[in-house]
């Protein structure tokens, strides 16, 4: 039999009071533990938030820096390309174009002058052989002195040389064919101009256009 603390408290009520006291103690322990865990969690959570915020900030800064560096590198590359292009253009002008301008103009003048050799309405064998030789020599000299130097810049601009060569060869074919064609009365200056002079002038313009449009 369990004895009470006093005569008013029965033995059963003492057992119950101990239990409630224990429960209150346990509850306080639980609350303390929860508070401790929550405090740790809060600390951990806050720490993580801070780290993430810092990481985001660093990432943003790095991205901005990377973008800036990329932009600077791209700008530098463009500037270098432009400088290299300018240097190449200058070389093209100094080494190839300017020394051959006279050759270029003289060739077209001499080509137009063949109308003065065509003094009879039709050509006999000797005359046609002579005019063919004259035309052939004019083109041969022009190709050697003007066209051939253009070939050295072909590596950087594959179409440049070939475009101009095609213009020159087409003109040579046309002029050769026409001066030897007996159906034309080429000693007539109008007929010469309509059939040959216009082609010469067009070819000259097309070469000039190709040179002006030259982009290494």
């Amino acid at each position: 039999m369990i004895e009470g603390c006093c005569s008013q408290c029965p033995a059963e009520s003492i057992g119950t009071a101990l239990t409630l006291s224990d429960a209150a103690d346990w509850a306080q322990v639980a609350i303390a533990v929860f508070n401790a865990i929550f405090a740790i969690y809060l600390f951990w959570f806050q720490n993580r938030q801070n780290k993430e915020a810092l990481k985001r900030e660093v990432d943003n800064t790095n991205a901005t820096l990377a973008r800036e560096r990329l932009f600077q590198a791209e700008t530098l590359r463009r500037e270098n390309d432009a400088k290299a292009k300018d240097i190449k253009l200058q070389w093209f002008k100094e080494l190839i174009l300017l020394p051959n301008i006279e050759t270029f103009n003289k060739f077209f003048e001499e080509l137009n002058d063949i109308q003065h050799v065509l003094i009879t309405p039709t050509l006999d064998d000797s005359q046609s052989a002579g005019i063919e030789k004259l035309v052939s020599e004019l083109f041969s000299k022009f190709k050697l002195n003007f066209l051939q130097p253009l070939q050295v810049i072909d590596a950087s601009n594959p179409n440049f040389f070939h475009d101009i060569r095609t213009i020159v060869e087409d003109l040579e074919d046309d002029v050769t064919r026409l001066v030897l064609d007996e159906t034309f009365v080429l000693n007539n200056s109008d007929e010469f101009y309509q059939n040959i002079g216009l082609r010469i002038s067009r070819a000259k313009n097309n070469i000039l256009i190709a040179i002006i449009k030259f982009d290494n």
Partner: protein
Amino acid sequence: MSDYVIHLQDFRTEGSKVFTGRDRGREVREKSHIDFAVDKNQNIIIDIPQDIRSINPSFLEEFLYNVVRKFGKENFFKKVKWNNSGRYQITSDVVEAVDSILRDNNALTT
């Protein structure tokens, strides 16, 4: 080994007295089978019609392109002969075409 004769008359445009243009040169090269014949024959004889007045270098460049690249300048002139009874003198045009082919070849390989 025998000689292989190419008669340019067979490839001539009716009434024309000139051979011009790269396209025509390429066409005659293929139709005349010069690239195959050059390996199987001792010499190639190219017969120029008597009344031809001109054969332009652009035509010759395409016509002779593979043969010149294969044999080089010196051997090309040993291997390929021209039969020309007319007034037209082809030598300077052939030399110009051969030089141009070899220049082209050098430009492509450097």
